[in-house]
């Protein structure tokens, strides 16, 4: 028996074995202890004692899981100010502080470099140390926000809290890349929650690979319905409450976008993007014509381009890559590069799954309730047979695949961006060119 099948068996056995945990109610802590544990304000001895209980009590674990999901859903709610400081997590500060430091150094040293070039002897003023604190990062975030505030509200750029999520995603992607070779990411994948899959978030590594005219790629996507009315698809805030026994999540009714809502035609969405890119280019041109003292606008341009890139991604995402299965209740949605979401209640609630953090998914097809094929750039082809575990399929070629159709978990056809079609009937073990 292949090791992968043994792994699958082990995963299932673990799920069932741990789901049967039960504890008598009188052993469970009161709400104040649960809250103190969640907030990490119990002393070490007490925390250890309660963790022993939690490790064997499905009820308490469900409660803690509900709390952490509710927290993330609340943080992801549009317009809601974060209760906790964005800067509380030092991991989020690292990329933001690095960017802030680079901008500060450029601002400080650029005049000096120009004066050297003109032969003027100037003493460089002491460079202000980049404070790894709130202000620089907040400034970067505010610049990004202000740069994007000029665009259509429907395609508004991420707020500072979203940038925190982007930075978090970047840090995770770097981690994922470092673990990729060891194969560990194939073992444990980061499941995406609603907070992580906020519509306007784009992984910066993905951005770095984007080139001009990426929005054209959206035109090539022919396998998905038009995008919804808003790029900020309304995520249901109620995706919480792990279902015990390893069952999929109990559907929690919550406000959400139904797949058939009024939708911006794709052409209009691309037009919006074109306008945005044009605006960014115009700002770029205007900035170049300004006096050297305006070199600080470099940060603005960078932020505007980044915002444009994110919006492209947001539009591609809001291109509502909703993939319908034969069951009207079971829907898939490509949430962001490398991540998909599954709904078991017709789109009312969604649960995230990581397919491959380095993959840029473009289209999918679901021939069965538990079967889904995904394709994307650079030969990305994936399939799941249990609506949970994603298997990478060897592609016919390292092409950008923009469309897929499938009959079952073994037979599928993929279409590349240059119109080539390949078909497999053995789950990708072999491919044949098709007419």
């Amino acid at each position: 028996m292949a090791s992968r099948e043994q792994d699958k068996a082990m995963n299932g056995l673990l799920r069932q074995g741990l789901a049967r945990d039960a504890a008598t109610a009188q052993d469970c802590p009161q709400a104040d202890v649960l809250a103190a544990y969640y907030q990490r304000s119990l002393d070490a001895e007490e925390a250890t004692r309660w963790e022993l209980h939690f490790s064997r009590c499905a009820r308490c674990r469900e409660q803690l899981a509900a709390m952490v999901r509710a927290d993330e859903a609340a943080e992801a709610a549009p317009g809601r100010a974060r209760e906790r400081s964005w800067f509380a997590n030092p991991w989020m500060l690292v990329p933001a502080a690095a960017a802030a430091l680079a901008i500060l150094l450029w601002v400080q040293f650029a005049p000096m470099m120009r004066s050297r070039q003109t032969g003027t002897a100037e003493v460089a003023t002491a460079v202000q140390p980049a404070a790894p604190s709130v202000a620089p990062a907040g400034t970067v975030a505010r610049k990004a926000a202000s740069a994007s505030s000029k665009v259509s509200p429907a395609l508004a750029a991420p707020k500072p809290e979203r940038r925190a999520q982007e930075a978090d995603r970047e840090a995770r992607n770097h981690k994922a890349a470092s673990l990729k070779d060891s194969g560990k990411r194939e073992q444990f994948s980061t499941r995406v929650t609603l907070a992580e899959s906020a519509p306007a978030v784009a992984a910066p590594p993905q951005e770095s690979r984007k080139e001009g005219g990426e929005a054209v790629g959206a035109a090539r996507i022919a396998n998905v319905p038009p995008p919804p009315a808003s790029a900020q698809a309304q995520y249901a805030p109620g995706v919480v409450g792990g279902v015990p026994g390893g069952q999929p999540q109990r559907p929690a009714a919550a406000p959400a976008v139904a797949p058939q809502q009024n939708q911006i035609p794709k052409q209009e969405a691309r037009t919006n993007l074109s306008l945005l890119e044009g605006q960014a280019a115009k700002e770029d041109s205007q900035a170049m014509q300004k006096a050297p003292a305006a070199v600080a606008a470099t940060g603005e341009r960078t932020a505007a381009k980044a915002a444009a890139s994110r919006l492209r991604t947001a539009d591609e995402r809001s291109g509502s890559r909703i993939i319908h299965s034969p069951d009207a209740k079971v829907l898939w949605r490509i949430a962001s590069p490398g991540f998909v979401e599954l709904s078991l209640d017709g789109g009312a609630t969604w649960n995230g799954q990581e397919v491959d953090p380095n993959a840029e998914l473009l289209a999918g097809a679901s021939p069965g309730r538990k079967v889904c094929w995904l394709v994307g750039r650079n030969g990305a082809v994936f399939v799941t047979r249990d609506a949970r575990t994603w298997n990478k399929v060897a592609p016919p070629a390292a092409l950008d695949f923009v469309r897929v159709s499938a009959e079952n978990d073994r037979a599928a056809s993929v279409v590349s961006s240059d119109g080539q079609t390949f078909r497999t009937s053995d789950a990708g073990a072999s491919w044949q060119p098709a007419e």
Partner: protein
Amino acid sequence: MTLSHTSELLRPETARRLLEKAAPLKEWSLTAEQFQIALERSAAQRFGAEAKAATSAKLSAYLEGLHLHDLALACACSGGNAAAWEHFVAAYRPELYRAARAIAGESGARELADSLYAELFGLREPEGRRKSLFDYFHGRSKLGTWLHAILAQRHVDEFRRTRKTDSLDDLEPGEERRESVAPAAPPDPERHRYLAMLQATLAAALAALEPRDRLRLAYYYVEELTLAQIGKLMGEHEATVSRRLERARRDLRRSVERALVEKQKLSEAQLRLCFEYACQEWPFDLTRALSARE
């Protein structure tokens, strides 16, 4: 329970000092006596029967570490102060309903939040004293976190009480069904024995796990939390969570395989059969598979 030992920390002047530190709004009209009762109740809840034996330093550290402002608000609300209640409503009602929506979904949120809201407001008992859920807040966490915990507890309890399964495995009539129970006449008469051995061995291995490892695995496999969420609950970075999950899973598998080979005297081929039979059971409910045999 009122502590009777005469620690300096629970003297009236100590309660006044902590009340001053709590900085309640003047209009809450919270007295030092009321606050002292709340502090004593909190300490009694924490230390229980050992409260009298608690050292003064330990008790002092505990009291100083409380969320005193939130405790003062809860105390004033519990006492029926209108200004305190208005402050609570303005500061926490939106969050309460938002958390309820996040936990219970739109359909269940209002009922969940309304019932909690009413209990927080409290009922006046025949003796004239108001009994409020605020009496159970002891300042060990933020008031908002405590409210979240109550909502989560109630929602989970209600869900467990009226549990329904809604699974991809609930197949529509006529839909092709993958076998999820052992066949009536299994070709291998040892199948039942292999499954039973595997289940028992895994159960023993799980029981021997370190609590945090077990908790991490349960969060991942049963609650299906993300690595980041697990990290938040356990105070670890998600990379640490991933690494420790991998190690625990690997160690578990080795433990199971070793036990099956050494104690049950299975060959490598029989070991593979164990997993193969388990893999054939979807969704790996070995209990049901084993019961079907009986």
